């Protein structure tokens, strides 16, 4: 990761009072893209493989190849003592992962809970597209945004069902019955 060194360099420049605009821009750009990729993955991980595939069906996909064919494995899930203390190992989860490279060079990674290798591959493809100058906007508009909207609707519905079970307990004065 050449760019992470540039982050260090950027801070040193700042400390010396020499602000280098070009590096600054590149770091911001890098961080923005990282945030964008992460946001897209957060949506894709909650979608079914079929839903992602359906959104990609009408998409004019560029040439791409599997850099890592889908592979299943485990990730040890961690919690924290008391919820906010030192970490401990809670138990494992199945995870599927894949990597895809576009002909234009962008490498996308797909990770998801479960054992659906095709879903991991589709997430990797989307991640590569998100990074692409030519397809980044379109994949956000045609794939990520509609899936995000569906996810939000599902979550809102679940939250509304939960909210109906909110309760007020009253403590009674003894003898009031």
């Amino acid at each position, binding site marked *: 990761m050449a760019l992470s060194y540039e982050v260090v360099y950027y801070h040193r420049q700042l400390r010396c009072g020499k602000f280098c605009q070009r590096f600054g821009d590149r770091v911001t750009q890098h961080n923005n893209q990282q945030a964008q990729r992460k946001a897209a993955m957060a949506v894709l991980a909650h979608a079914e493989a079929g839903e992602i595939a359906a959104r990609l069906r009408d998409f004019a996909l560029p040439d791409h190849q599997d850099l890592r064919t889908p592979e299943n494995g485990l990730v040890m899930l961690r919690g924290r003592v008391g919820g906010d203390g030192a970490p401990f190992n809670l138990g494992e989860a199945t995870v599927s992962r894949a990597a895809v490279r576009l002909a234009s060079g962008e490498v996308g990674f797909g990770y998801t*809970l479960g054992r659906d290798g095709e879903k991991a591959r589709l997430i990797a493809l989307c991640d590569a597209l998100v990074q692409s100058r030519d397809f980044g906007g379109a994949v956000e508009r045609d794939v990520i945004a509609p899936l995000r909207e569906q996810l939000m609707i599902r979550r809102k519905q679940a939250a509304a069902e939960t909210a109906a079970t909110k309760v007020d307990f009253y403590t009674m004065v003894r003898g009031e019955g």
Partner: protein
Amino acid sequence: MYVAVKGGERAIENAHRLLAHKRRGDHSVPELTLGQISEQLGLAVDRVMSEGSLYDRELAALAIKQARGDLIEAIFLVRAFRATLPRFGASEPVDTGAMRVQRRVSSTFKDIPGGQILGPTFDYTHRLLDPALAQGFVPDALVTTEASTAPTPRVTDILGRDGLIESSPQAEVGASVGDLTREPLNFPADRDLRLQNLARGDEGFLLAMGYSTQRGYGRNHPFAGEIRFGEVEVEFSAEDVGFAVPLGSIALTECQMVNQFKGSATEAPCFTRGYGLAFGQSERKTMSMALVDRALRARELGEEALAPAQDEEFVMSHSDNVQATGFVEHLKLPHYVDFQSELGLLRKLRKEFTDAQAPDAMKEAAE
């Protein structure tokens, strides 16, 4: 010592074939699907995931089906499966404070920020068998209300702000997280290992241990500070990607037990705590776990540790139902050679006993 036996192949094969038929049961009854188990026996799936120590609803449902509903056998199957997959690494610790809460109750404060939310619970039901469920039951339409966007902080965080409760122990810089699936257990064990052991421990065992503390064997005066159930996001720092990748979300239950306070000449008194966390909706499990976690802190808190629930070697060595069932159930496997040698020894001892008696008997007869 166990000496292996050979033979019986045909009988074993036929027995397994018979088992497969018994598992399927009466063919006029439709076969169970994994979806039906996962959706309609969800709490059994949660238990198998927790104690099988593997979050995968579909695999847990398959294990329950294969085990004919024997949950400990299902847990065994899941544990065996996890040994077949490579481990990619460990997740970032999940943030239960950011949980999308589906249930959240506190028995210590009635007015908590974010409110008390009953969610899907057996609490306040009358525990009467419902004949309506026997066939074709359709539940009443769901009621919805506008959800508030207010955060739901952990109750212990609220108490913590005033210093009324001890804060959670923080990790030392560079400390590794203990993993009992990788290194054998050594005693005394640190809290991270104890919690990992309890999280995969048998619910019945932990329930009995927790109950014993309430009945006076290592009493620690507990309140259920908070129990919450809902979904948390999981992130994994994948080296190839270069940042923490979202993996999706998992359902968790967390129990914060608030226990008897403690102070000293140098520290103001404050409540102590016990912690429980498990996959899925596992309230009884996490409450028991929190009671036992607190009991196991006896040494650290300078309490006299005389009760079984306070003895970490006893608790941690006997909490795992796969280990326990393996050792108990191995007794039914052929021990013929073993038993023959015992039998030989016993015959010899009996003969010696009779021989020793014999002169006396002869003497008596002579008299």
